[in-house]
């Protein structure tokens, strides 16, 4: 309905190949960015920014990471939580070893550590497929969790075993630590997420992304087309873990402020897998939708009885919350196994062919 594509034609490959070939989509993206960069910082409450937007963005980034691995390369992983942890602990070490270095830079750098670890645990994927791979990633998950506890050096021998985010400034603005303003942290997170989303989208639309999808769709044919499984799979693991790592570092540095191993446990791996599946495998947009759905729905659900003025015990709300999320996951899988992104696409298609049904 809102799509008026008549007269939108492409005279070069650049335009034809652009990620948002339709004018209305470009307008929408600009609108979203405007809301994200201007409206939300200006009008969002601290709670909204801190407890909804920042985690949403961070999880969306992690979901993009997992989506690269699972959605685009077809390798199921339940190790995302641990890879996020690698990023977080690396970042913590880097920040304490180099206290004067720009912390935003270090957050990004910590992704490399996570990428390296991800590649190591990606090696078995060359021989193992499907559910079997789930087990190897679980091995990574539990082994790394154990490392986060056992290797005390990682948390500077802190007696609590937790990593605590020190205060750091970038250009005289407090970026991390408890004094950092929510809006500042939000803008940093947003910028990193936007930049990395853009990069992910670039990779996916280029040769590398294609080789990932080739491996996903038909690994044998991919190999016969000259894709080296080693490169394709390991690069997917590396990029995926990089994203998870940066997300993990941001989770601790930009959101939680301190973290123990439980912040990187297998439940987080599941959480992010949910986001990817509910959002849609193989869709960056889906990662955002999935993260928003999985993260914000409980928050909204929790606020719901209160908003209605009902006095429901919190525990009941929480139990019901679990039931609703579980039920919704099943519901979504039944009505649209390809996730919210697919629903979005169908809706968009509906709007594009409006008023026709197809």
């Amino acid at each position: 309905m809102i799509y008026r594509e008549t007269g939108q034609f492409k005279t070069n490959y650049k335009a034809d190949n652009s990620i948002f070939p339709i004018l209305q989509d470009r307008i929408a993206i600009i609108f979203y960015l405007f809301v994200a960069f201007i409206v939300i910082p200006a009008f969002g409450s601290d709670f909204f920014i801190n407890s909804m937007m920042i985690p949403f963005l961070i999880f969306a980034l992690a979901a993009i990471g997992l989506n690269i691995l699972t959605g685009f390369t077809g390798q199921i992983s339940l190790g995302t939580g641990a890879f996020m942890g690698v990023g977080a602990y690396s970042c913590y070490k880097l920040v304490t070893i180099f206290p004067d270095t720009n912390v935003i830079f270090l957050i990004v750098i910590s992704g490399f550590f996570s990428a390296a670890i991800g590649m190591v645990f990606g090696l078995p994927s060359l021989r193992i497929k499907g559910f079997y791979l789930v087990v190897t990633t679980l091995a990574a998950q539990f082994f790394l969790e154990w490392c986060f506890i056992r290797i005390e050096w990682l948390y500077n021998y802190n007696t609590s075993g937790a990593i605590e985010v020190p205060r750091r400034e970038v250009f005289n603005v407090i970026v991390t630590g408890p004094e950092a303003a929510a809006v500042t942290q939000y803008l940093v997170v947003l910028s990193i997420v936007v930049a990395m989303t853009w990069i992910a989208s670039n990779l996916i639309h280029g040769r590398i992304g294609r080789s990932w999808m080739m491996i996903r769709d038909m690994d044998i044919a991919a190999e016969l087309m000259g894709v080296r499984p080693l490169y394709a799979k390991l690069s997917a693991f590396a990029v995926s873990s990089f994203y998870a790592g940066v997300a993990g570092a941001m989770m601790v540095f930009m959101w939680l402020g301190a973290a123990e191993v439980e912040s990187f446990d297998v439940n987080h791996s599941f959480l992010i897998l949910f986001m990817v599946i509910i959002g849609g495998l193989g869709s960056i947009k889906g990662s955002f939708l999935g993260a928003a759905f999985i993260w914000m729905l409980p928050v909204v659900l929790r606020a719901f009885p209160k908003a209605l003025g009902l006095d429901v015990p919190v525990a009941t709300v929480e139990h019901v919350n679990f039931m609703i999320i579980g039920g919704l996951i099943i519901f979504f899988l039944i009505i649209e196994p390809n996730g919210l992104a697919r629903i979005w696409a169908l809706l968009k298609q509906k709007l594009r062919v409006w008023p026709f049904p197809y």
Partner: protein
Amino acid sequence: MDLLYDIFADPFVQMAGMPDFFVQVLWEGFVTGTLYALIALGFVLIFKASGVFNFAQGIMVVFAALTLVGLYQAGVPALLALVLSLGVMGTLAVSVERLVLRHLVNQPDIILFMATIGLSYFLIGFGEFIFGGETKSMITSELGLPTGSSVVDFAGGIVIFQHIDIAAVVIAGILVTSLALFFSKSRIGRALRAVADDHQAALSVGISLNQIWVIVWFAAGIVALATGIMWGARSDVSFALQIVALKALPVLILGGFTSVPGAIVGGLIIGFGEKIFEVYWGGLLGGGVEGWFAYVIALIFLLFRPQGLFGEKIIERI
């Protein structure tokens, strides 16, 4: 050199030095392994008949136990509670088939897998919603299960056998045997095997896939209840147990997704392996290695035998 000694010699010296303790470790490994095998068995039942990798099996274990205890706490006599719990598991099987599986026929495995994760979430919420979230203790003695222990003198020391552990092993044995008999002797059992081999063929001999799903899920529910009682008696009943259920994954990797004997052997390997490794080598690494040992073993194993212990070599065709 010390390190090498610690790794390669010392543990064996300890084993030889305290044979009674070593036997105790083996026994613990055996019991744990049996319980792992039971959980894995639930997975295998469902996977074999419907190709669904039922992630919720672990949750079903807790859910079943929670139902049993919850009913008892609500004033239902123990044995009646047991029967009612069976009924609940049956209802669960029917509901899962009606509300979930039926709508997901022909979807890719990963989708069904995800649906069972959704099911786990639902069951957690539902279980706690009905019976409350606090940890509960299993009504072991009320169910007539033994609670004491026997101390056996052995090689200058003692080995302690918990009666409940013995009971667990016996019940596991009975369960596996009866399932095996059920599969090989009964009409439904043979139908199940037909489904496992070829869905089309099964359909053509007039077996309803939907019924079969209900039956296997119910069977898995029974296994879950038995497992839940045993685990509950060893520790307690709460959803924190779910993490234990994940151990069934490496067990399945070792044993293969479709093999009942594989599940048992795999369970025992993991059970023995992790106890021995934790007790004799764990200290070198600071302890707590049990959490990942099973997975790493499975991973290493996979690298050399991607098809599992009992699987056949895969020839890829194009």
